[in-house]
C-alpha cells in the first residue's frame, strides 16, 4: 500500500496542478505569433491612401492575442476542462430542461447545405431550408395546438417580447390601449422584464396554497385595462394549474389575451396543448424542450405559435408555399394593410437551431415526444419519492402539493433552521459530489428554494445516486455543518468573491472600470 508520506506532504502535491496560474489568452503567447496565414495579395497593389484615407484608418491595431495555433488549442482545451457539462454528469437545473443533446443534431447541422447557406440566398436555391422550416412550423403548431408559427425569435425572452408586442398590436388594431399585463409571482424574470421593454405595466398575481393562480386575486385584477395574462403551465413550481380553464375564461372575458411561457413544455408534449387550454400565444424554447445544446448560455431559439386572432400581426418574413409546392419568403412589405409588428432580428432566425430541433422531432415522432414528457414527469416524481423515502423531505419539504409535473421545488427553510446550512451551502456541497446543483432561490416565493428538473434522459440509477447525495449531505451537516458551509472543496476554484466583483468590476483584461 501507499508509502508512508505525511498527509500534509501528499496534500501539497495534490494541489500542485491546481496551482497552475490562471492566465488569460491575452497573457499568453509572444509578439508576432499567430495561427492565421493570410492568403497572398493577388490583385495589383494600390495607394493605401486612395483605398482608405488616413483619417478613416485606425492608428494602432487592436491588441488581440498573439499565439501559435497549438497554443490556442491548448489554452481553450484546458479551459474547457474547468467546466462541468451535461455529458459528464447529472444537471438537474430546474426550469432549464437539461436533457441529453444527441450528436446526430450536430452532424446534420454541420452539413454544408445547411451550415454554409447564406441567409439571403434566393429562395429557389434554399428550398431545403425553407421546407425544413415549414415542417418545423407545422410540428410546433401541432404540439402547441396553435396553428400559426413564427420561428424568428432568438430565445425565450425574445419570443416573449414578440408575444407582448403581438398582444399590443392586437389591442391597438381594435382601437384599445390596454396597459396592464398580469403575471403570477412565480413567473420567470423574463416575463416582467419583457412587459416593461414592450412599454406595458406588470401587475403581479398571487399564488394560492395549491401552487396555482389565486383566482380571487385574478378576478380582482382582471379589468378592461388588462392586455394579457402571462402564464407558465406547469408553472415554475412544477404545478399544473388545475383551474386553467377558469383562468382562461376570466381572462378572455375581459378581452385580454393569454400568453403561455413555454419553458416548461417538456412536461406536456403530446399530452396537453396550450392552444387547447385557451392560450393565444406560446413561445417555445428549442434549447430546452427540443434539445438545442445550451452552449454555456446560448444559442437559443424561441419560436412562437399563435391563434387565429393574433396571426395577422406576426413578424415578417413568413414562409409561404406556392401553388406548385415551392416555398418562398414573404416580407409583407408593400402588402397593403399588413398589420405585422415587423422584424425582431435580421434574416430568418436561428436556423441552425431549427435544424437540430427538427432532427429531434423527426427522431422522436408523435409517440416519442409523448414518451419524453411522460418519462420527464415520471422521473421527477420518482426522484421526489426517492428523496421522501430517504427522509430528505423532512428538512427539504416539497413547497406545494404532493406530486409534481416534470420538476419540483423544495424549500430549504427547515434545513436552514435545523441544520444551519442554507440552500446555497447545499448546492455548493453538491459540487463536491460531482453534481450540478438544481436551480436555487427561484421561484422567489419559496423560502430557500431548490428547483429540481431531472429530465427524461436520466436513468433511475442516476436519480438514486443524486437522492443518496442529498441525504448524505444532510446527514453530514447534522454532524458538521461547516463542511457544507465552506464547500465546495474539490473544484478548480472555491467560493468566489462576488461582492468585490460587482463593487469594483474588472470586466476586461488589465483594466479596472466603474
Amino acid at each position, binding site marked *: 500500500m501507499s508509502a508512508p508520506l505525511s498527509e500534509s506532504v501528499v496534500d501539497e502535491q495534490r494541489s500542485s496542478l491546481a496551482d497552475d496560474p490562471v492566465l488569460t489568452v491575452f497573457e499568453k503567447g509572444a509578439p508576432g505569433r499567430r495561427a492565421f496565414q493570410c492568403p497572398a495579395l*493577388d490583385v495589383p497593389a494600390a495607394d493605401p491612401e486612395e483605398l482608405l484615407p488616413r483619417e478613416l484608418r485606425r492608428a494602432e491595431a487592436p491588441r488581440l492575442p498573439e499565439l501559435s495555433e497549438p497554443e490556442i488549442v491548448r489554452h481553450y482545451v484546458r479551459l474547457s476542462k474547468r467546466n462541468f457539462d451535461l455529458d459528464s454528469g447529472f444537471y438537474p437545473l430546474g426550469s432549464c430542461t437539461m436533457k441529453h443533446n444527441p450528436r446526430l443534431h450536430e452532424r446534420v447541422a454541420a452539413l454544408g447545405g445547411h451550415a454554409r447557406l447564406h441567409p439571403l440566398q434566393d429562395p429557389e436555391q434554399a428550398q431545403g431550408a425553407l421546407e425544413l422550416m415549414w415542417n418545423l412550423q407545422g410540428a410546433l403548431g401541432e404540439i402547441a395546438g396553435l396553428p400559426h408559427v413564427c420561428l424568428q425569435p432568438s430565445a425565450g425572452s425574445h419570443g416573449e417580447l414578440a408575444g407582448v408586442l403581438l398582444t399590443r398590436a392586437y389591442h391597438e388594431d381594435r382601437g384599445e390601449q390596454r396597459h396592464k399585463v398580469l403575471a403570477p409571482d412565480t413567473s420567470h424574470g423574463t416575463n416582467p422584464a419583457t412587459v416593461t421593454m414592450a412599454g406595458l405595466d406588470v401587475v403581479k398575481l398571487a399564488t394560492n396554497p395549491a401552487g396555482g393562480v389565486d383566482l380571487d386575486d385574478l378576478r380582482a385584477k382582471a379589468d378592461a385595462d388588462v392586455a394579457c395574462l402571462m402564464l407558465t403551465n406547469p408553472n415554475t413550481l412544477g404545478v399544473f394549474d388545475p383551474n386553467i380553464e377558469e383562468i382562461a375564461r376570466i381572462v378572455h372575458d375581459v378581452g385580454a389575451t393569454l400568453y403561455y411561457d413555454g419553458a416548461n413544455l417538456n412536461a406536456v408534449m403530446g*399530452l396537453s396543448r396550450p392552444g387547447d387550454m385557451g392560450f393565444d400565444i406560446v413561445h417555445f424554447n428549442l434549447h430546452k424542450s427540443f434539445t438545442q445544446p445550451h452552449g454555456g448560455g446560448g444559442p437559443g431559439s424561441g419560436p412562437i405559435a399563435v391563434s387565429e386572432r393574433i396571426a395577422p400581426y406576426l413578424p415578417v418574413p413568413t414562409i409561404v408555399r406556392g401553388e406548385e409546392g415551392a416555398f418562398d419568403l414573404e416580407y409583407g412589405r408593400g402588402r397593403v394593410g399588413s398589420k405585422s409588428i415587423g422584424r425582431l432580428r435580421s434574416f430568418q432566425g436561428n436556423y441552425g437551431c431549427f435544424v437540430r430541433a427538427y432532427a429531434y422531432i423527426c427522431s422522436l415522432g408523435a409517440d416519442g415526444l409523448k414518451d419524453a414528457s411522460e418519462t420527464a414527469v415520471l422521473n421527477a416524481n420518482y426522484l421526489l419519492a426517492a428523496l421522501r423515502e430517504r427522509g430528505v423531505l423532512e428538512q427539504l419539504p416539497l413547497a406545494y402539493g404532493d406530486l409534481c409535473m416534470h420538476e419540483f421545488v423544495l424549500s430549504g427553510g427547515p434545513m436552514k433552521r435545523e441544520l444551519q446550512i442554507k440552500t446555497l451551502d447545499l448546492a455548493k456541497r453538491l459540487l463536491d459530489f460531482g453534481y450540478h446543483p438544481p436551480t436555487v432561490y427561484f421561484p422567489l416565493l419559496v423560502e430557500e428554494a431548490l428547483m429540481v428538473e431531472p429530465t427524461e434522459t436520466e436513468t433511475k440509477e442516476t436519480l438514486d445516486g443524486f437522492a443518496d447525495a442529498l441525504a448524505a449531505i444532510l446527514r453530514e451537516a447534522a454532524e458538521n455543518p461547516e463542511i457544507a458551509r465552506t464547500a465546495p472543496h474539490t473544484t478548480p476554484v472555491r467560493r468566489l468573491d462576488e461582492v468585490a466583483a460587482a463593487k469594483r468590476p474588472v470586466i476586461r483584461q488589465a483594466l479596472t472600470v466603474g
Partner: protein
Amino acid sequence: MLAAIGVGSVQELFDRQVPAPVRLGRPLDLPPGMAEQDVYEHLRELAARNVSAEEQLSFLGAGMYDHYVPSLIDMLMERSEFLTPYTPYQPEISQGGLQVMFEYQTAICELTGLPVANASVYEGASAVASAAYLAKLHNGRRRIVVSAGLHPHSLQTLRTYAHGFGAEVVEVPLKDGRTDLDAWVAAIDDDTSAAIFAQPNVYGAVEDARALSAGAKDAAEPVVIAQVDPITLGILAAPGECGVDVAVGEGQALGNRLDYGGPSFGFFAAREQYLRRMPGRIAGETRDIDGRRGFVLTLQTREQHIRREKATSNICTAQALNALGGVVYLAWLGRQGLVELGELLLARTHYARETLSTLEGAQPLHSQAVIREFALRLDGDVPAIRRRCIAQGVNPGVDLQALTGREQDRGGLLVALTERRTRADVDRLVDVLGAALAAERHTEAVAV
C-alpha cells in the same frame, strides 16, 4: 419506479394533475419516430436541396459573410464542456466558460476601442434595438435619429422595438453613399435619445464616424450608437476613437458559420457610464476564498432574474457558444492577422469595384471608400441579370432594392468579398456579369 411513487401508472400521474378537458385525447398528428440513420438521410436530402457557398461562387453579403471558419473552432465548439452546459450559474465549476466570456469581452473592447462590453446579445439587428433601449433608459428622450445607411433589418427591428418602448424613429438620408451630415445634425434635437449609424453602411461606404459623432454631440448630446462590421476594425478607426458611445454589431464574420442566418452572436460595447444599463451577462474577475484568480457573472442587479420589471433588458439565454467562436477566431487571426485580413479585403474589394465598373452598364453607386462590400448600379433589370449569373454558377450579390425596399435602390447590386474570394473569382464574376448585362441589353433591345 411507479411503486416507489405510489401510483399505478404514468397515466395516473397525469390524471391526478392535468384536468381531463385540457388533455389531448389523441396522438399528435406528426410522423412516427425514425432511426438515426433515417433522420440523417432526411436532413441530408434537405441540405442537398440548398445551394450553399460550398457549391456556388457567391458574392452575397449584406450582414453575413462566407469567411473561412478555421477548423479548431469547430473542435472547440463541439467539445461537450463548451457545448452542453448552461449559463455559468455555479462559477466554481464553470471557470472555463466564464473565462471565455471575460476574454471575449476584452477582445470586443479592444476591437471597438470602448471600455466595457457584455458577453453577447442575440445578433446584430436586435443589438441595435437594444442599444436604443439603453439610450431610452439613460436619457428618457423619445426620438431616435437613424441614418438611412443602417442595414434595413436593423432599422426594421429598431422600429419594432421602439414601438414597444415608446420612441419615434426618424430616418436621415444619404448623400453620395454616406449619411448626409447636415441633415443628420439638423434632425437631432433635444428630445433625441439616440443617433444611430452603420460603419461601413449597408451600401458598403465608410462613414465619417468622427464627424457624425461630433455633429450629434454638438447638436444635442444623444447617445451615439454605431453598428460596426467587426472584420473591418483592424484597419478602420475604432468607434471609441471616433466618439461613439455604444458600438454594437453582428459577430457572424468572426468564426461563425452562415447557418442560413443564425445562430451567431451580437456584440455590445459602450463607454463606462453605460455599464450599469447594459443588457445581458457580464463576466468579471475576482478571487476565491483561497485567493485564487477566478471569474463570476457580475453586475447581475441589471438583469431580469434579479430586477424583474426593473431590469435593463429581458435577455436571458444569449449566444455564449457563438461568442466563444468569436474570441477563438480573433485569437486565431491574432493582432497582425486582423490587420492583414483587412488590407487584403480592402485591396481585393477595390480591385473588384474598379474592374466591375469597367463593364458596360455597371457603375459604382457611390464614390466613397469601401472595405469588403460595395454597391453597383446596373443598367437593366437586376433580378433578371442575377438569374443569368446564377445560371452560370455565380451569385453576383444582393439585389439592393429587394433588400432595402427603397425605390431609389432599383438597379443596385451589393457585392461582398471575403478572403475566400480570390482575384480569379472576381475575374470570373466580371466575365459572367458582363455577359449577363450584355444579354439583358440584347433582350431589352429585342423587346423594344
